[in-house]
């Protein structure tokens, strides 16, 4: 019974990880890849770790597992946020089927200050339009 439970959780976790992997390969632009994968993987790994905690049934293991999960949940979105905004700075374009880009022209070029409204002088702002060519892999 316990084994079955562990197997199920572990399987679920593995599926999410696999989904994240597939998502990372398939998604058409960087932001989507970040978006899709961060959580799927987090969830998947969390489940697998929980499976391990159930398997060992030891307080020290469980607490460690919780610590890891906590840490991942805490850091994964931050990591996604960091790399997402960094992508924007370096000019990674959005997928051509994207419907809007509210961020356009709101970063100051040099200081990377982010405004809540448009910057008047366009020459000082990072302009990062949606990709024109429908080529999925050539973002840059």
């Amino acid at each position, binding site marked *: 019974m316990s084994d079955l439970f562990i197997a199920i959780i572990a399987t679920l976790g593995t599926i999410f990880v696999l989904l994240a992997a597939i998502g990372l390969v398939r998604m058409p632009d960087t*932001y989507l890849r970040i978006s899709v994968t961060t959580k799927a993987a987090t969830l998947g790994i969390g489940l697998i770790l929980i499976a391990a905690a159930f398997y060992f049934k030891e307080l020290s293991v469980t607490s460690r597992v919780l610590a890891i999960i906590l840490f991942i949940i805490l850091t994964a979105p931050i990591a*996604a946020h960091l790399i997402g905004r960094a992508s924007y700075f370096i000019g990674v374009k959005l997928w051509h*089927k994207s419907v809007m880009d509210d*961020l356009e022209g709101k970063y100051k070029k040099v200081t990377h200050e982010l405004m809540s409204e448009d910057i008047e002088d366009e020459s000082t702002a990072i302009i990062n339009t949606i990709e024109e060519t429908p080529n999925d892999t050539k973002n840059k």
Partner: protein
Amino acid sequence: MISRRFLSNILLTFVWVALTGSFGFLNFLFGFVLSFLIMWIITLNNGDEKYFKIIPKIIFFFLFFSYELIKANIQVAFDVVTPKFYMKPGIVKVPLDAKSDIEITLLANLISLTPGTLSLDVSNDRKVLYVHAMYISDKEKFINDIKQGFERRLLEILR
């Protein structure tokens, strides 16, 4: 100030006890001293004061969040495994009611953790959060969902 530090200290001590998995008095004491030292070293000067109130709310919120997480995950998973993409992605500007650092941070993180959405950045004046989302059929509805869902619940806990 002192009580705040003390609370942080106790909290850390519990983390220690959980980590080591031994609930003996000595371990607790050791954990306390250790946490105290760490607190002393880094002098956290903006720790929050309501740890004990927060903890149960966190747990409640955690359950809600888990539900959201799984639901959204399935939606995205479907899009990932099926050949055609159904999504309408884009970056949306979401005005913020959250004010303090911790509020904004938690909100942004929770949005990111939910599949399909990703907090890209907070404006320097902390008025807006820029979110990248996969399914923007209606921009206003999207913003509203966030504000009424995550933000409201979160602020309820934090304030």
